[in-house]
């Protein structure tokens, strides 16, 4: 349980950065990309890209495999799915609760207007 919680925090922390999100989006479109391919459209230097890839790998969001001198990066969907599950659970709770809140507040408003009359 604790491990799951730490994993989730790592996933969300990794997703905060826009460059890392951009990298993930490109990996989603393309099954496997080399590090230099990923660095190409970024306005940042290769070492910076490597650092972002380290964070994504630590969060379990990507895997890297090396053949010869080429490192291929692939998306690893499981942690992302866990993050989505987390959001979905809260959505179920809050969406229904807020509907009930709205209905309650609206009945209170009507009550108040009738009292003012």
């Amino acid at each position, binding site marked *: 349980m604790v491990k799951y919680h730490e994993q989730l925090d790592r996933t969300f922390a990794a*997703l*905060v950065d826009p460059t890392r999100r951009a990298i993930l989006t490109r990996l989603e479109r393309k099954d496997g990309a080399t590090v230099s391919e990923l660095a190409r459209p970024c306005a940042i230097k290769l070492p910076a890209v490597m650092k972002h890839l380290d964070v994504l790998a630590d969060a379990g969001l990507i895997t890297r495999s090396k053949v010869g001198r080429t490192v291929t990066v692939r998306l690893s969907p499981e942690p992302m799915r866990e993050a*989505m599950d987390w959001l979905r659970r809260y959505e179920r709770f809050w969406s229904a609760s807020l509907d*009930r809140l*709205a209905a309650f507040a609206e009945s209170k*408003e009507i009550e108040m207007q009738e009292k003012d009359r």
Partner: protein
Amino acid sequence: MTSLTLVRRIRARRSIVFDALTTPEGIACWWGPDDGPVLLAETDLRVGGRFRVRFRMLDGSEHESSGEYIEVVKPERLAMSWRWAGGEDPGESLVEIELRAIAEGTELTFTHSRLRNEETRHSHEEGWNGALDKLERHFLASANGGRHDQA
């Protein structure tokens, strides 16, 4: 993607919505995803004060969450830390609620994020790019439904 955002337009003035969100009597009338009862509601509405709510769902399961008020600006803004009691989803998250006056009453913007404070604010300031939405759709495609960050 690191947060859930929901928006509701409510035909009631902000002070009514704010009280519903923050008083034990109000909370008892809506808290929880189904018609199961709220068993306990405590609020100490001030920055640093705590809240605690326990409810039972129709399936008989009981759940309790608690946290600390981080921002209290009546009737427009509320922020609080959030934690479930017991084993379900350990760890602390952040709930933020904005109430905006509109012609028909109140627009409520609700955000629940996994990350707290600076990290969360940082990510909100950046905003969310369309690329991210696409990525999210990809991962939601296999599972069913669910909309996040739609605001």
